[in-house]
């Protein structure tokens, strides 16, 4: 139970008013000078699309999925689960807890069950939990994620065979392609390639030695 900060001293109120004024000023400037901003957003989107189109090798495809927010949100590096397409911290201060399942009376499955709940927009899949802290991928490049994935000290002691099984058959991993709707009733974004294509890419990558490129 963490008390939300809703009360402010007069000094804090003055600072808030100043910040609102400053924000409003920046907003107005942005509105009247919005052409560069729109261009910047357009370039980012084109780049993202190009990246998806450029996923030629099995490694590219596997890493495009593993670095997507559907995966990364539950591989945090700060013990704070993330939510949403913007990977914001889990609401209300939910944390990893001692066993990756939250706390004794506030566990992941206090809210998350074995399936998505379409009425509440709460996602769910079997054994819903954070990946262990040793498997923190948040903030890593795709090369670093690949290195951590293959390192038995950081992957739960899994062999290549066990990794293939985990990546292609674990219902919690495959939930990424059936993420359901969010609490606004909107479909969650799926990873950039189809599930079957990902499974094929995982198998091909491991069959060819799970080589990690230099960049």
């Amino acid at each position, binding site marked *: 139970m963490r008390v939300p900060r809703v009360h402010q001293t007069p000094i804090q109120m003055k600072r808030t008013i100043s910040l609102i004024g400053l924000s409003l000023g920046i907003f107005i400037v942005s509105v009247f000078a919005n052409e560069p901003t729109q261009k910047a957003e357009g370039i980012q989107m084109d780049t993202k699309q190009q990246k998806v189109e450029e996923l030629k090798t099995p490694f590219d495809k596997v890493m495009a999925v593993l670095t997507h927010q559907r995966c990364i949100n539950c591989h945090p590096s700060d013990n704070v689960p993330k939510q949403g397409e913007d990977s914001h911290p889990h609401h209300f201060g*939910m944390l990893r807890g001692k066993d990756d399942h939250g706390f004794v*009376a506030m566990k992941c499955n206090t809210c998350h*069950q074995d399936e998505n709940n379409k009425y*509440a927009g709460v996602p769910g899949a079997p054994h819903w939990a954070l990946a262990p802290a040793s498997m923190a991928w948040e903030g890593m490049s795709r090369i670093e994620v690949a290195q951590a994935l293959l390192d038995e000290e950081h992957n739960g002691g899994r062999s290549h065979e066990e990794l293939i099984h985990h990546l292609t058959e674990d219902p919690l991993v495959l939930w990424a392609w059936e993420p359901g709707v969010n609490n606004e009733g909107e479909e969650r974004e799926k990873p950039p390639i189809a599930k079957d294509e990902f499974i094929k890419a995982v198998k091909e990558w491991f069959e060819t030695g799970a080589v990690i490129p230099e960049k």
Partner: protein
Amino acid sequence: MKISFNINGKAQTVEVPDGDMPLLWVVRDILNLTGTKFGCGKAACGACTLHIDGDAIRSCSYAVKFAEGKNITTIEGLGTPENPHPVQQAWIEKVVPQCGYCQPGFMMATAALLNKISDPTDEDIDNNILNICRCATYTRMRKAIHRAAEIANSTNSAQQLNP
């Protein structure tokens, strides 16, 4: 679709059109146990908290089909006016509620916490009670949670001395 479970110690079978229907809707609209509240409907506020097999569950995101064969406790089953649960007794002593709407959820969350940790620290409370109160009764609730632990522990000690 028929679902059977025990609720507040009583066997119940309900017929629902959709097994994915939130348990909260069944509890309130079919069984008329309206102590459990609908707050946000997004498993965020905790007003709908009840117990399933002793664990706190947000019932607005819990499909009723998963309740098959389970033991459910709602605020109506926590205690009675004559024999209140330690949490209810502490809530009365500390005059916790303001509008009161969220309080059943807090009390069920607290009872679940005390089942696991008999004498919770402030940190335990911070980690385990993540419900939301728009009246901001958090300070009184924290006092009541510690008081509930005292009552429960003194009752348990007395029972051990005079079984």
